[in-house]
């Protein structure tokens, strides 16, 4: 249990990279990119966890209750929202690539010249 979340993080990263490299469609590739990004969220939260502690919100509990690290949660929180917008931008590129080249196969798009 001490290192199991990190093993899962490495697994998700590896699986996502495999999907990106062997992808035959740009939209599938972008979804694999989302999987790779999600591995970093799990890693961030896994680093900041304290066994037995509660979430860092002290509205109804005492201020000295041990809580997990709030900084990595702040990072992961803005990350999730911003990566969704960047994914939308990538999909807009995919739509325009389809309009111009007619294909969305990454292995064919490489050899096309503008």
């Amino acid at each position, binding site marked *: 249990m001490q290192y199991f979340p990190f093993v899962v993080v490495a697994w998700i990263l590896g699986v996502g990279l*495999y999907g990106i*490299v062997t992808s035959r469609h740009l939209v599938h590739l972008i979804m694999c990119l989302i999987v790779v990004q999600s591995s970093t969220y799990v890693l961030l939260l896994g680093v900041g966890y304290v066994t037995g502690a509660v979430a860092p919100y002290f509205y109804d509990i005492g201020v000295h209750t041990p809580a997990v*690290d*709030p900084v990595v*949660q*702040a990072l992961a929180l803005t990350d999730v929202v911003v990566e969704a917008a960047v994914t939308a931008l990538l999909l807009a590129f995919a739509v325009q690539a389809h309009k111009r080249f007619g294909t969305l196969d990454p292995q064919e798009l490489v050899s096309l010249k503008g």
Partner: protein
Amino acid sequence: MTPSLRRWVFLAAAAGFVAFYLWGLLGLPGFGKYPGPYGFVLNRIAVSQTKATGVVSAVNFDYRGFDTLGEEFILLTAAAGVSIVLRRLRGERERSAVDEAVDRDVPATSSAVRMLALLFTGPVVVVGWWLASHAQTSPSGGFQGGVFLATAFILVYLSGEFLVFKRFSPVDLTDVVEAVGAGGFAAIGVSAVAMGLPYLYNFLPLGTTPGAVSSSGTIVLISFFVGLEVAAAFILIVGELLEQTLLIRRRSG
């Protein structure tokens, strides 16, 4: 390089890379054994320093406000990029939003979907607004509130037609709201500088009760602006894609 050869080369490289990555991760202190003092110090002093009981939002908008400003401008740029990239290419024409209802032969949206979407729109707006404006109390903050508000607009589209969605969120108004959100965040920082304090210093009165609506100074204000900006950015993105899918057609020759 044939695809299967590429796959084998990748598997060999990935085995080495993941092995090194895992070796690095196993050097961490272990899951649940967070050693660093920064998180514990913040948890101890954040409530009394900022009078905000939601420490994550206090970190986001006060202690690490500058990083959040950068992330918010990434969001703004991505939304602007989507609008620019999806502009009409030469050789396309945009159908007016009225004709497309006539010859569309897609099945009508089922009544269950429409009713559920309609039922949930109101509560989602309330929850999103509450999240965006109460950053200092429980789990809330501008980013969560903003995406919930954008979800409400998507529910409007699901429960009606694209035209209803367009009427609720005209592009000019959404653009202005997004700009106000992003500019407001930057302006709060600049107004701290105008008072002779560091950029994004929490200069508004902090209040006395931790977690009350009027406490925690600029955190509430910044979170509200961020909520506006995130909601407007996602509404713009979804609106652009909807227009591309429904309105823009190849010019048939």
